[in-house]
């Protein structure tokens, strides 16, 4: 009955699956004619493969023939586009259609034929066929991962329009495909065993659905950041307001070693006592020892390399102008342009390293991984329209100002860097230090995190962070609101201000201006300032800083591949590096001139990325570190280095759709304006599909498994314990169990004798034992047991040994092992 049903349906199901696979693979790649050709080719391939498989042709010959035919069709197709003959004959349009039909139809035909042929000849290779079908269907949805939601757009747009979550659509399609493949598998294997194992598979799949929240949107995995997220192994350098008994020397005049904290070094500085030593160690060790560096350095987007070049070039020119026409005087007289910032061209930074790891050699080291920083990290919604004078938004997460002798790390003072909020707000949390309100504009907004981070971040400079409900529990890990005092004063008007805050203690001022021990910084800085600035502005802190910035813009080369042991190594080496190197260089040079400065780390997004909307999508490639200097009356001012030369490959363009969709989600706007906003319902609870139910199911399954094994063991052991009366029955049953483990099972309606005869080739002694067993049951019960050999226990123990030995000679030992592990093999025995 089953066989008949299957025989009829098999081909139909197979055709359907193959047609779907062909369509999935060629969708969007070819013309309609090509699609139709692929469809027809796949269908024809099913039958051709079947026919070839049943023919007497040898497999290699048949496969070779299929390959040759495929090559021939391709050749013919290339004739249509590479040579002029066909276009002249048919016209160019028809020639293209001809080529597409030949190419796609031929490929589908050849591929499907080969797969079917192989599957017919070698049934185990059916897996190959099923795998190709599964891969083809999956490929359509491959883009829907790593946080990039809702691909393909054709499908998700339709779903949004009809107010369906596209995830459900995708899940439905996936479930449908699984069912299709399962049906195909059952149908092709033609045995009840396939069905029962599929049931087990379904139970496992259900379990995984219950335990893993698969229905949510895909969570991005950050391929790199600056240690901003929780994902990596290496944590960021922690701020330690009280550094136990090993506080740093507050003395700014101390040497490099004095800034080091012996108890909790940042992993970057390691045990080096000074920059020179660190450099040496770094040189020796190369960059291989970055034990704590869990993050990698993708590239953020050298796509804007051109921009950076332009911007930097312009700036350089202007600076030259300013330098030569130094007599203009006045704040505005200086024709300094706002610092042009490249579009992510300086996006990369290494992770600061973890304290617990063995000290690595390279403080900046980050594991060399392939670039790729498109994974979305967070989305920021700006409530107020704000256009930064620098042309880019800087979201500050943490600050590194403590000089350790080899690099800057988070401070351990409790009076420095108070303008950053450390912890995610549960109540409205004001920053402990707020920059002066003048020259700044208040910008409010909200951040929704896609990946958990260690600290909150906000547009510089944060004034207050406050909690806000997560707008979409499935999508975001947390959200908060921020109010920032963002810089509004133009860079040109910063000239003429004093550096540092007059309210700072001398100690604090010294802390922020603690220069590196290497005297070359001072020499270089002085040299640059002398060369670039006229006498009048030569003492102006901002002019000095800008001159150094422009100098660095010109001199430095951006590359995320570069590794340097120390900043000195970088600055007096090949000058090829990324944002952390740049920022350190700038801060060291500024500090050597006595300008209070530090490094901030966080995210950076070019204003143009907004594309006019209020949502800003921050991607892992936008992680950034930049130098800042303190100007009296303005506070900490971002003065980023934008290298003119970028030797990284271009990065990923902003995904506007994703930015828009995530922004709508963060704002809790329904994608369909016709439906009421979801606010009335409140945030949707995260669905775990009943974890308790899952545990219940798991324990039930485990209990069932244990029970099955117990029964299996019992049936194997009981022949040794049974009474003589039931010895034949239980012994024979134990033998049947063994045979079932080896895959030898009596078929329905088959008599015991026929079964024994059927497997006599493999297990010859079983026939005799079967006769004994049947005689025990169907023989004359009046005969005295002594006269009946079937009740003799030794006969049976010998029989068990014989069967075990004969099964041991079977050619496939792994099959027996599988059978032994199979908990329900005895269920086949009846």
């Amino acid at each position, binding site marked *: 009955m089953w066989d008949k049903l299957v025989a009829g349906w098999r081909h139909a199901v197979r055709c359907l699956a193959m047609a779907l696979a062909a369509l999935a693979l060629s969708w969007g790649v070819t013309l309609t004619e090509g699609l139709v050709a692929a469809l027809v080719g796949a269908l024809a391939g099913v039958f051709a493969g079947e026919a070839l498989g049943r023919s007497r042709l040898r497999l290699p010959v048949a496969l070779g023939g299929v390959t040759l035919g495929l090559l021939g069709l391709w050749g013919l197709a290339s004739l249509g586009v590479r040579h002029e003959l066909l276009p002249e004959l048919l016209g160019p349009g028809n020639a293209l259609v001809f080529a597409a039909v030949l190419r796609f139809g031929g490929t589908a035909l050849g591929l499907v034929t080969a797969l079917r042929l192989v599957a017919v000849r070698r049934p185990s290779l059916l897996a190959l066929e099923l795998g190709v079908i599964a891969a083809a269907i999956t490929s359509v949805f491959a883009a829907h991962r790593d946080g990039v939601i809702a691909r393909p757009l054709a499908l998700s747009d339709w779903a949004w329009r009809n107010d369906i979550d596209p995830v459900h659509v995708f899940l439905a399609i996936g479930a449908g495909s699984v069912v299709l493949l399962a049906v195909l598998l059952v149908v092709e294997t033609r045995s009840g065993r396939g069905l029962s194992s599929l049931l087990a598979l379904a139970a496992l799949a259900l379990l995984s659905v219950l335990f893993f929240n698969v229905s949510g949107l895909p969570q991005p995995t950050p391929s790199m950041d600056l240690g901003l997220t929780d994902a990596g192994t290496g944590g960021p350098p922690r701020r330690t307001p009280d550094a136990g008994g090993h506080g740093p020397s507050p003395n700014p005049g101390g040497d490099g070693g004095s800034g080091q904290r012996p108890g909790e070094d940042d992993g970057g500085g390691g045990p080096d006592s000074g920059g020179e030593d660190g450099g040496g160690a770094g040189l020796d060790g190369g960059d291989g020892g970055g034990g704590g560096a869990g993050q990698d350095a993708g590239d953020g987007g050298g796509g804007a390399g051109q921009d950076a070049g332009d911007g930097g070039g312009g700036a350089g020119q202007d600076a030259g102008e300013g330098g030569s026409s130094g007599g203009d005087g006045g704040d505005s007289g200086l024709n300094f342009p706002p610092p042009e910032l490249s579009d992510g061209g300086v996006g990369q930074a290494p992770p600061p390293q973890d304290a617990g790891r063995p000290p690595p050699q390279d403080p900046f080291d980050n594991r060399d991984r392939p670039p790729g920083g498109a994974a979305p990290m967070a989305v920021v919604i700006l409530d107020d329209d704000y256009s930064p004078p620098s042309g880019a938004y800087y979201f500050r997460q943490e600050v590194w100002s403590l000089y350790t002798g080899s690099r800057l790390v988070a401070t351990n003072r409790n009076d420095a860097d108070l303008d950053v909020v450390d912890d995610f707000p549960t109540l409205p949390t004001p920053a402990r230090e707020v920059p002066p309100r003048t020259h700044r504009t208040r910008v409010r907004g909200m951040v929704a995190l896609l990946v958990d981070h260690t600290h909150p971040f906000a547009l510089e400079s944060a004034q207050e962070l406050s909690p806000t409900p997560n707008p979409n529990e499935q999508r975001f890990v947390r959200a908060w609101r921020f109010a920032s005092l963002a810089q509004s004063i133009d860079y040109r008007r910063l000239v003429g201000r004093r550096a540092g805050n007059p309210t700072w203690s001398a100690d604090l001022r010294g802390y922020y201006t603690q220069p590196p021990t290497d005297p070359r910084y001072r020499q270089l800085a002085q040299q640059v300032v002398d060369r670039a600035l006229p006498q009048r502005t030569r003492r102006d802190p901002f002019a000095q800083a800008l001159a150094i910035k422009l100098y660095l813009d010109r001199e430095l080369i951006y590359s995320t591949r570069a590794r340097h042991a120390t900043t000195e190594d970088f600055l007096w080496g090949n000058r090829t590096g990324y944002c952390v190197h740049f920022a350190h260089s700038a801060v060291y040079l500024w500090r050597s001139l006595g300008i209070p400065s530090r490094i901030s780390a966080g995210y950076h997004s070019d204003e143009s990325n907004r594309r006019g909307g209020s949502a800003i999508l921050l991607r892992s490639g936008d992680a950034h570190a930049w130098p800042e200097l303190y100007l009296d009356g303005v506070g900490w001012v971002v003065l980023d280095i934008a290298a003119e030369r970028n030797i990284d490959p271009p990065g990923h363009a902003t995904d506007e759709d994703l930015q828009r969709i995530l922004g709508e989600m963060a704002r809790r706007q329904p994608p369909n304006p016709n439906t009421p906003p979801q606010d009335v319902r409140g945030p949707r609870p995260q669905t775990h599909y009943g974890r308790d139910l899952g545990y219940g199911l798991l324990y039930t399954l485990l209990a069932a498994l244990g029970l099955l094994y117990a029964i299996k063991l019992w049936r194997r052991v009981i022949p040794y314990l049974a009474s003589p*009366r*039931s010895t034949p*029955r239980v012994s*024979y*049953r134990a033998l*049947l169990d063994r045979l079932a483990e080896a895959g030898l099972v*009596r078929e*329905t*309606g*088959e*008599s*015991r*004798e*026929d079964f024994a005869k059927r497997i006599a080739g493999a297990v010859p002694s079983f026939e005799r034992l079967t006769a004994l*067993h*049947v*005689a025990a*049951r*169907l*023989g*004359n019960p009046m*005969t005295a047991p002594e006269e009946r050999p079937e009740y003799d226990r030794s006969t049976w123990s010998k029989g068990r040994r014989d069967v075990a030995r004969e099964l041991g000679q079977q050619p496939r030992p792994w099959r027996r092992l599988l059978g032994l592990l199979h908990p329900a093999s005895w269920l086949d*025995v*009846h």
Partner: protein
Amino acid sequence: METDFQQSEHITHTPAPPITDLNGAYGVVQRLRNRLQMAVRGRDEIIEVLIIALLADGHMLLEDYPGSGKTTLAKALGDCIIDDRPDDEIVTFRRIQFTPDLLPSDVTGTTIFDPNTNRFFFRPGPIFAHVVLADEINRTSPKVQSAMLEAMAEKQTTVDNRTRKLDELFFVIATQNPLDLAGTFPLPSAQLDRFLFKVRMKHIDRASELEILASYKARKAGAGQDLPRCTRTELIHARAVIENAVWVAPEIRECLVDFANKTRADPRVLQGTSTRSLVLMIPALQARALTRVRDYVNAEDVAYLAQYIFAHRLELAPGTDNIEAVIRDCINEPMERLARATLKRV
């Protein structure tokens, strides 16, 4: 009795030692099997069935084409049997060629007036034999057929209102040609039911046929003639031993009844298996078990005999012609139940 005919038969006046156990009965089987297999090549399965029918006290209907060896087989069977009671009027083997103009008395015998004694005396017909070959039984009129069939069912025949008993070992091998049906009188199902087995003979395989051609001369010269025979009394004893000593388990009987019910419920079958056929099957199963040297009947016996016993007893609905498939389908479930029963606790 003409003396020339009697001389061709094997007669003994000294009775063989009686057969009392299954070993002796199996000796009979072996002797029959050896002689028959020597005489008829390539028909081992038919020979098995024939021996089973003989020991189960049934009759056989062979469906075959001319020249397939049925007469040879029947004659060889007659040749196996030694008449140890030569004084009665019953001989070991007779062949009756049925024709449309045959009369019942041609079969059963007739009373003849003897002018010497002025009395009628009964002259036995060919039916008074141990083995009767009824050739082309469907060619004769129903009248003759029914006379024949009475004899088969009752082991007696009635001539001139006087009932005469046939020998206890009365075994009929009837044949009919399934193709040449012109001018025939097909046996009604009630009469078919009298035959324990209906066997459709198939052409023998190439090797056997070659062997027949090769051994033709040797057999003509009388090869295998000196193989041991068995006496009529031995056969009767063997039947009794089989009936008493071969065990039929209740599970087997359940299987038979289940099968019968299955055939009665099957929509492809107009008339299911009769109870009589089940009754007849029991000795057949026992005989089969003996030929396999077993003292109990098992599932294999049932499966083996089902086709031979039930194929001519089931009347199929129009549109169904594959009787073998019907039997196979119907016996599947009872067989499964039987197989499972052997693993159940008693």
